[in-house]
């Protein structure tokens, strides 16, 4: 079997790299294939999808492939796709999708950080912080800083007992709670204008239907 196989697809060409072949062989074969193709198609731009199968390309290997393509200015890689994902990426993805339940005391200077959503039932002291990649639901007594959607998830919300907090943060925005009028069951989210807005928790379905539906499912 060849190290690289060219296939036609409805949306262009696919280059399938044999995962069992040595990478040097893949490069040699790719080089030959492209130079041949370049001569056969004297004009027009061609986009390729590269399928690496059960192989994950390293940064250097990607660089090597890009270098080969750089020799053929009318050819470009539209997508690099692999059938496998490395374990760390999967673990992070799973963790992000999971809801964490946490209790206990978060003291001044401590930070509780989770990759996904967080339901917090403990006590958050002044000067302490809880930070989640997803949304934060505060059920316990919380006086510190709650940061939802860290670092860049503007869809995340902070909800629950927010009235006694010092700050609510979502993604890169901050609100100082003392300056606002938070009620007992609040909901804080980021508006389309990138401003933090707070309302009551019964508005969750209206402002963040996807989060609401996910809660219904679980």
């Amino acid at each position, binding site marked *: 079997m060849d190290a690289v196989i060219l296939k036609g697809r409805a949306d262009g060409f696919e280059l399938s790299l044999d995962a069992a072949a040595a990478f040097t062989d893949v490069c040699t074969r790719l080089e030959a294939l492209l130079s041949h193709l370049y001569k056969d198609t004297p004009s027009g731009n061609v986009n390729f999808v590269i399928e690496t199968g059960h192989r994950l390309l390293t940064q250097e290997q990607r660089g090597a492939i890009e270098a080969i393509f750089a020799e053929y200015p009318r050819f470009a890689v539209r997508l690099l796709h692999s059938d496998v994902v490395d374990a760390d990426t999967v673990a992070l993805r799973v963790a992000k999708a999971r809801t964490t339940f946490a209790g206990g005391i978060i003291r*001044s*200077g401590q*930070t509780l950080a989770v990759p996904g959503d967080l339901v917090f039932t403990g006590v958050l002291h*002044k*000067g302490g912080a809880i930070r989640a990649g997803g949304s934060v639901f505060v059920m316990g007594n919380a006086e510190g800083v709650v940061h939802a959607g860290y670092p860049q998830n503007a869809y995340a919300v902070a909800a629950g007992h927010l009235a006694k907090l*010092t*700050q609510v943060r979502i993604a890169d925005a*901050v609100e*100082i*709670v*003392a300056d606002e009028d938070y009620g007992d069951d609040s909901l804080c989210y980021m508006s389309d204008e990138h401003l933090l807005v707070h309302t009551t928790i019964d508005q969750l379905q209206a402002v963040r239907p996807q989060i609401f539906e996910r809660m219904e499912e679980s």
Partner: protein
Amino acid sequence: MGTSLVVTSGKGGVGKTTSSANIGTALALAGKRVVLLDLDIGLRNLDAVLGLSNRIIYDIVDVANGRARLHQALIKDKRFDDLLYLLPAPQNADKDALNPEQVAQIVAELKPDFDFVILDSPAGIEQGFRNAVAGADGAIVITTPEISAVSDADRVVGLIEQKPMSLKPQLIINRIRPHMLADGSSMDIDEITKHLGIDLLGIITDDDQVIASSNSGETIVMDPDNAASRGYRDVARRLLGETVPLEQITVQKRGFWARLFHRD
């Protein structure tokens, strides 16, 4: 160009942070532009004493490492128009997160915009102390009339004198208990000043209201009738070059009926 002053003591719990906050507030009340720097990395308090904890977004280490601009990290105390600012310390950073050169750089950046830059030093004589001293033109040494505090103050004065600043160090004796001074069980003010061999900047009496006010995020200086407040106001006036005589410390004599009915 402003003056930078480090508030330090060696010993903990003698009132460095309280004094920094009150001197800063008193200077702001006198119409000066003041910025307070909290250098107690990991154990910040100055923000709490000033009631500004909930406004902290960036801190001094963020500024030093270029994660935030200086003006982003400065917190304005809204009670004093445009006169009083705080640059807070981080809570989570390591104590070695800041070095003396960085502090000196930040102070140099602040001095053109402010009349006073006050650096609140942490207790001890390690990294945090060296950071605080690095940016200062002068030092205010705080002590209490106790042998342990005075001996630590002596050590600190010695360290400051090794690398002389442009202004001479000055002394504040804090937490003076008038009745102990009267019955001779406390160290004498003149005795302490003479022992340490530096100029006396002020004396502050011990007062319950100092603690009560800081618990509510206010400084005692805002109360013009309090004895400790007068002490800090006098300190501010002396820093501004006025000649103010030391307040006479007197024990309030309780009347016959008071003694009869309120024994303690």
